């Protein structure tokens, strides 16, 4: 064991030796080591978050044909620090009639629900917080805490727009949790485990995006909905409810919501990479190129993949208009949920039937099954659209528009 092959355990063993040589019991040394590990992980996530502010602003500027921050430091890299100083020295306002404790707790909880996710994110085969055997469910549980923070913010602000934003968020989360859980089950079935490390290792020969491209798409869509980013950002729709749940927050409390959202998006980019794009693996190349197995290199690969996922989420956010709330719910309940259930059943059956056949055959068959499902879905949607159009035409042509309105 050395620093290159197993950095975390190397440092941990060294520290443990240091602590126990001073006469500390082994159990307490373990607790202290865990605390140090947690603090280091959180610090890493938060430092990354500062960088993400810059990335987000730079990328949105490119999508909108602007330059973005470019004055302070090379490529505007120092800009986030200037932003942080500004946020910290701003006046901290608590609105009259707000529920002080809940109001102040909400941004902390919002950030914490994101940080919690980092506990299970495997950066490399030997760099991870904890390898839970229920990691996939843990992801959903952390999401529940995130919803709670938004409701707390919305309610405690004593502002009707904030409350409306919180209500919308709950409707959003409760609906999109269903396809998200179902598509989380697909990697679980394919890898035969809920541990994120097991899921990553199961993709060493073929990535799950090949086996279930539709599952990946639905997971991405419901992840964007869970993040509350455009086109699902109804909880902060500025044209309707000003700023939604964080309307009353100022200074660093707003900063926590903002930074939490960015880090959340990046984390979900990481989860997409981990569940469907092989995590820290590189097409199984790491078996032949030992340098790719080194934890630090693998962590860089994983963070790169997560960044690509984050970029796709940004790409969607800055190119899509916000959808209406009834469309959002209909899209989820009438389209995503049935489709994800069909994919789940088909994937479960196919993976069981093909368990004995060679990998390339199984991958090919499962990919083709997904293509067939996609084609059938598009055909059904076209049929429904055509019927609807005919209905509208037959209703619209003979009578006046008023008569049609009355019949609904």
């Amino acid at each position, binding site marked *: 064991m050395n620093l290159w092959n197993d950095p975390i355990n190397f440092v941990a063993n060294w520290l443990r030796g240091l602590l126990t040589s001073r006469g500390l019991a082994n159990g307490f040394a373990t607790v202290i080591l865990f605390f140090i590990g947690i603090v280091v992980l959180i610090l890493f996530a938060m430092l990354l978050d500062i960088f993400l502010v810059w990335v987000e602003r730079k990328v949105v500027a490119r999508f909108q044909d602007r330059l973005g921050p470019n004055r302070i430091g090379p490529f505007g890299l120092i800009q986030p620090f200037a932003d942080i100083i500004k946020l910290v020295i701003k006046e901290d306002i608590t609105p009259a009639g707000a529920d002080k404790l*809940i109001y102040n707790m909400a941004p902390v909880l919002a950030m914490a629900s994101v940080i919690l996710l980092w506990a299970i994110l495997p950066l490399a085969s030997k760099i991870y917080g904890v390898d839970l*055997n229920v990691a996939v469910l843990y992801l959903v*549980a952390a999401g529940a805490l995130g919803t709670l923070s938004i409701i707390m913010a919305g309610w405690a602000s004593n502002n009707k727009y904030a409350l409306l934003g919180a209500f919308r968020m709950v409707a959003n*989360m409760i609906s999109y949790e269903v396809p998200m859980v179902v598509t989380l089950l697909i990697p679980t079935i394919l890898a035969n485990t809920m541990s994120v490390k097991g899921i990553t290792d199961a993709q060493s020969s073929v990535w799950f995006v090949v086996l279930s491209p539709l599952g990946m798409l639905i997971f991405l869509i419901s992840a964007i909905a869970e993040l509350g980013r455009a086109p699902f950002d109804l909880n902060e729709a500025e044209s309707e409810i000003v700023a939604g749940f964080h309307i009353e927050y100022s200074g660093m409390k707003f900063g926590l919501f903002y930074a939490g959202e960015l880090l959340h998006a990046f984390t979900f980019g990481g989860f997409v990479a981990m569940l469907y794009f092989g995590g820290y693996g590189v097409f199984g190349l790491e078996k032949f190129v030992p340098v790719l197995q080194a934890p630090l290199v693998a962590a860089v690969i994983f963070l790169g993949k997560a960044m690509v996922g984050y970029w796709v989420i940004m790409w969607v956010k800055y190119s899509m208009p916000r959808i209406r709330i009834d469309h959002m719910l209909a899209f989820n309940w009438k389209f995503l949920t049935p489709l994800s259930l069909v994919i789940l059943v088909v994937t479960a059956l196919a993976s069981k039937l093909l368990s004995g056949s060679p990998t390339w055959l199984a991958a090919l068959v499962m990919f083709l099954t997904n293509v067939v499902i996609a084609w059938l879905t598009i055909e059904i949607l076209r049929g429904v659209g055509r019927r609807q159009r005919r209905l509208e035409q037959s209703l619209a042509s003979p009578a006046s528009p008023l008569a049609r309105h009355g019949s609904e």
Partner: protein
Amino acid sequence: MTPEQIIFLISAALILASAMMVVITRNLIHAALWLVSALFGVAVLFAILNASFLAVVQVVVYIGAIAILFIFAVMLTRKEMRDRGSQTRSSWWLPALLGVLILAGLIFLIFGQPAVNRTAPAIPAGVDPLRLLGSALVSPDGYVLPFEAASVLLLSALVGAVYVAIGRKS
């Protein structure tokens, strides 16, 4: 004291204090949030007991459901959401007595168990408790019947809710 015991004591204190606050507080929203804290403490207890599945499900199901409870609390009550009446009835001593009796009975029963002083055996390496739980839920000599019955019950509740909510087309 081992670290586990310290964590247990902290979370037990958290559960008891939060459960008291759920009943005592006059603000409905605060009661819901105290309930979250109590249920979170229970999740911590499950985690200490190596029951990671139950711990996570506790958070997903109960804390996730609090979000809905919250909305009902806001939508179904008046703006103030404060109950100004007395919080106790004249016969409050009766349930208190009953509670103390049940507590005494439980303590008596638990200390009557032979296993009370034993520490839990460590889970042997290579055994995944989650896997055991999963196969027990669906194996015929396990709990497949209760599992399926609960599923059918939930499905019928779902169908019933849809039927109630769908309304009559006029």
